[in-house]
């Protein structure tokens, strides 16, 4: 049932999901409200180690740098393209050259907002 994704985008998506979890657990308000609801929350050190390992698997250094830089500003750095629209900034991508290629990787970057795009 699971469809295969290309290497860099697959790992970057896992990285984004992991970053979301780390962000939620680090957020004092989110964490305290979860604990009030009865959820157990453990130390996130283990997660941070997993994150280092995962980031190390991204073969394209430049793509990882783009992700790391953008993720300081945005929660959603890796976003799907819907039709011809970047769902990060809602801008239509140009028809002739829909996306700018990031190095030799198979990932595309939105010219308007700089987010990393994937097709789902």
């Amino acid at each position, binding site marked *: 049932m699971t469809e295969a994704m290309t290497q860099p985008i697959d790992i970057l998506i896992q990285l984004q*999901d992991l970053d*979301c*979890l780390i962000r939620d657990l680090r957020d004092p308000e989110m964490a305290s409200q979860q604990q009030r*609801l*009865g959820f*157990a929350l*453990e130390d996130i050190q283990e997660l941070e180690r997993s994150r280092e390992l995962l980031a190390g698997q991204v073969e394209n250094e430049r793509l990882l740098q783009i992700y790391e830089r953008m993720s300081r500003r945005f929660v*959603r750095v890796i976003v799907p393209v819907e039709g011809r629209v970047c769902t990060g900034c809602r801008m239509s991508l140009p028809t002739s050259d829909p996306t700018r290629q990031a190095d030799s990787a198979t990932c595309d970057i939105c010219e308007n907002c700089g987010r990393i795009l994937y097709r*789902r």
Partner: protein
Amino acid sequence: MSSAALPAASRMLFLEEYLRPTLFIPELKSKRKDPALEELVAQVAAAQLTRHPDRVLEAVRRRESMGSTGLGKGIAVPHARSTLVKQRTVVVARSKKGVDYDAPDGKPAQLLFLLVAPPLERDPVYLNLMAEIVGAVRLARTRQRLLDAADFKTFRRILVEATRD
């Protein structure tokens, strides 16, 4: 378990609109936690809300590794942010025999609510949904009625009423 994460005045009700017959599992097959999580995520894929259940499952497992989402009293609310899920989704599942879920009171989970949502810059609804679910099932009487409900329509009605109490 407290009834709400936000003060009553700012509390809005969302859960109702997330309850769908295609996202309801009347009786889970699995009696163990990990295969039960797999069943829950498979339902998200069956409803065409993800094409990558393996990745969604991984996010759910990762959250679980940070502490059980089993809350005791037979309730579990596994949850995760996943880029590969199309929209906020709640899967509701029952298990008459119970799922061994590593809950603080040691009781098996009989009512399971999987909440998965894509990452958003700001998403108060995610936490509110969690709070609504926990609040709705706080009474033993409601939990029993949910377990006894003959069909999804009845289950939904009981749960929606309980969120308004």
